[in-house]
């Protein structure tokens, strides 16, 4: 039996695949650190965000399940989330403003990170305060939306528009997200204060942890903040647009 001629192309792809697999394993299992460019804090935040992604996914999947399994018709989001402005009902206008607000805050956060690494601490602190302001504004608008819906009779256990699960899921998911934003605002204020005082220039020790902080904390804060924004995009898509 004559051997099939093996094309070199075939051999190289196979070799590349093998060596790149081995390379990946070698990189991951290398000496001292698996993620060479990540500090402890950054690695921890990333892994926490993966875990938190699972929490939000479970919430959203549960919401989709009850939305499909409930026997009563689901209320129409574009009618419920409409505001009357100048005698006209504009659907989703508040949500549009909230989303714009939150995404803008991601922009200011990114600028804060940049200035923090450039050691321009006043600018970084001010941008973090602006980010916190946008975050607080978001929570405020959310409170306004909750109030409006509650006035219209929406409750966690039922509402006049349709399936009871509408109110349950709405308050639970937006509440949980709003909780994340609020926590973020609090930490933004704490870190902005530390940046403003120059704690990370003089190596002042943390009140609780008694460790010296670094400007990297601004970036870690930014990771959390962008994550909270990203989650909002999914809530916006699945809750308000569906």
């Amino acid at each position, binding site marked *: 039996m004559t051997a099939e001629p093996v094309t070199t192309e075939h051999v190289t792809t196979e070799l590349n695949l093998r060596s790149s697999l081995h390379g990946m394993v070698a990189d991951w299992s290398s000496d001292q650190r698996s993620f060479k460019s990540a500090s402890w804090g950054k690695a921890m935040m990333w892994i926490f965000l993966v875990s938190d992604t*699972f929490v939000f996914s479970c919430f959203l999947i549960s919401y989709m399940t009850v939305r499909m399994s409930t026997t009563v018709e689901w209320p129409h989001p574009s009618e419920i989330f409409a505001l009357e402005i100048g005698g006209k009902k504009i659907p989703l206008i508040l949500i549009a403003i909230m989303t714009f607000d939150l995404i803008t805050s991601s922009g200011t956060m990114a600028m804060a990170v940049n200035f923090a690494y450039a050691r321009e601490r006043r600018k970084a602190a001010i941008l973090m305060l602006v980010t916190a302001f946008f975050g607080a504004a978001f929570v405020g608008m959310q409170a306004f939306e909750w109030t409006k819906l509650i006035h219209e009779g929406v409750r966690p256990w039922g509402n006049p528009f349709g399936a009871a699960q509408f109110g349950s899921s709405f308050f639970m998911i937006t509440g949980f997200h709003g909780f994340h934003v609020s926590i973020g605002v609090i930490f933004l204020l704490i870190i902005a204060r530390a940046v403003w005082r120059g704690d990370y220039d003089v190596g002042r020790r943390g009140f609780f*942890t008694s460790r010296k902080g670094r400007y990297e904390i601004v970036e870690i804060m930014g990771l959390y903040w962008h994550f909270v924004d990203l989650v909002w995009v999914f809530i916006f898509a699945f809750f308000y647009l569906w």
Partner: protein
Amino acid sequence: MTDASVPQNVAPPPAEVPDVDLYHAHSWITKYVFSQDAKVIAIQYAGTAITVGILALVLSWVIRLQLAFPGAIPFIDANVYYQSVTMHGMIMVVYMLTAIFLGGFGNYLIPLMVGARDMVFPYVNMLSYWVYLIATLVLVSSYFFPGGPTGAGWTLYPPQSILTGTPGHEYGIILMLVSLILFIVGFTMGGLNYVVTVLQARTRGMTLMRMPLTVWGIFSAAVMALLAFPGLFVACVMLLLDRTLGTSFFMPSLVELGERKDYVGGSPILFQHLFWFFGHPEVYIVALPAFGIVSDLISVHARKNIFGYRMMVWAIIAIGVLSMVVWGHHMYISGMDPWFGFFFAVTTLAIAVPTALKVYNWVLTLWHADIHFTTPMLFALGFLVTFVNGGITGLYLGNVIVDVPLSATLFVVAHFHMVMGIAPVLVIFGAIYHWYPKITGRMMDERLGKIHFWITFLGAYAIFFPMHYLGVLGMPRRFYEMGETAFVPASAATLNIVITVIALAVGFAQSIFFYNLFKSLKYGAPAGGNPWRAASLEWQTPETPPGHGNWGKHLPVVYRWPYAYSVPGAPEDYLPQNAPPVRGERSP
């Protein structure tokens, strides 16, 4: 993989991260109570876990007494029985096993085994313990509220878990859910620490593939817990809202005692999916650390390197990945599309492959080894037997067609107590006997240890093995009493009495262990730094017990894997991980 011609154990590259600056405790309170030292936190975690574990053990006696002598003991009524079943299950699985493996052994061993000074974020680590303690207290406090703890069964399935027919529906179920939410928050803080410490804070030369399997097991379990606990978290939040605010996430419209409830349109099956998305990985969150620890016990006490180290690591990872997609096998009888049943049966049975690989590797490690029948080794061997036994019945239950008739019987109780009750508990005992000298500087009494082993091992076998027969006879689990049940023969009642008597005896016999534990603190023989002549890094600390910061002035440098036993040309029959390379040595 590794090319044999390339010398592996040359001096490792210089440190990538500067040495950490540690928090130094100034007072007794910050040193021993609100401590940021992982070793103290570990002992706090383990102490709390063992304490609630004893409570759960006593609750199991309540269950057994009722099953053997129905109605004979006045205070065990149906409510107390169901409350005992629920609390026994939940405490053992979550508050005892998970907490002791990850919070206890994880905290103590990870920094020592990877050559770190502490966990990466000691303050967060401390918070983790205190939140766990609060969660435990909230759970136990339900005994002091009107109605007592919940009797919903540890799976807490709605609708029954929050309806008025279930004991503890007033406060018990609320406290249970709040406690679980707190536990998850506390665990997340600890779990992030364990994962980041393993990934980012290893000492020079400590590649991932040179870590002891104990660390691999705990690390993989921590990763899985971070991905699986969200399912339980969400389930608890939603069930809590159903109970307190009257939402209908899980509650369909139903009539209770002739009265129509306000619930409408929820999905009870959704809870089961969320619960088991946590619940099945949870089995392996408990089992993987046990796998890891048992590998190290066998290797050290058989004076031989672990067989197929790389395959053992990949098997742990494969089990971890597969266990995230098998949760449906707990729901075969909940009503499920046959294709889903098929899918979940296939994934479930596929887990048997990496698991069997591990069992073969343990056996092959023992093959032609210099086995020392020390107490830790006996417990490791006991684990092998119970684990194989429980694993094989798992194959029965993983098949839909076998599971359907067996699911509601004592066969399932026998199966999971063998595989995730007795097996991990034997490993915990073995691990305590093994690492006690490092933690306290003194040996535990070997003779008492062996007596403790034989009573526990044979006794546990005598308790759970007959339950398989009872299950095959069709004896249902969770029933308060059988009454006049035609298909359960009278002899089953006799067997139940035998099981109960043994269970009481084995439970009391654990006092031998606690006597040994406390007596040896003061009277145990001084252990020295490395009584088992083990190669892994935790035995090479300059002080025993290890001081604050673990390593004195300089962090250790690692030259080889932790299984360098009986190395040709070495001065002793083991080479510590941090000993300089020997000429011609080929350790990985």
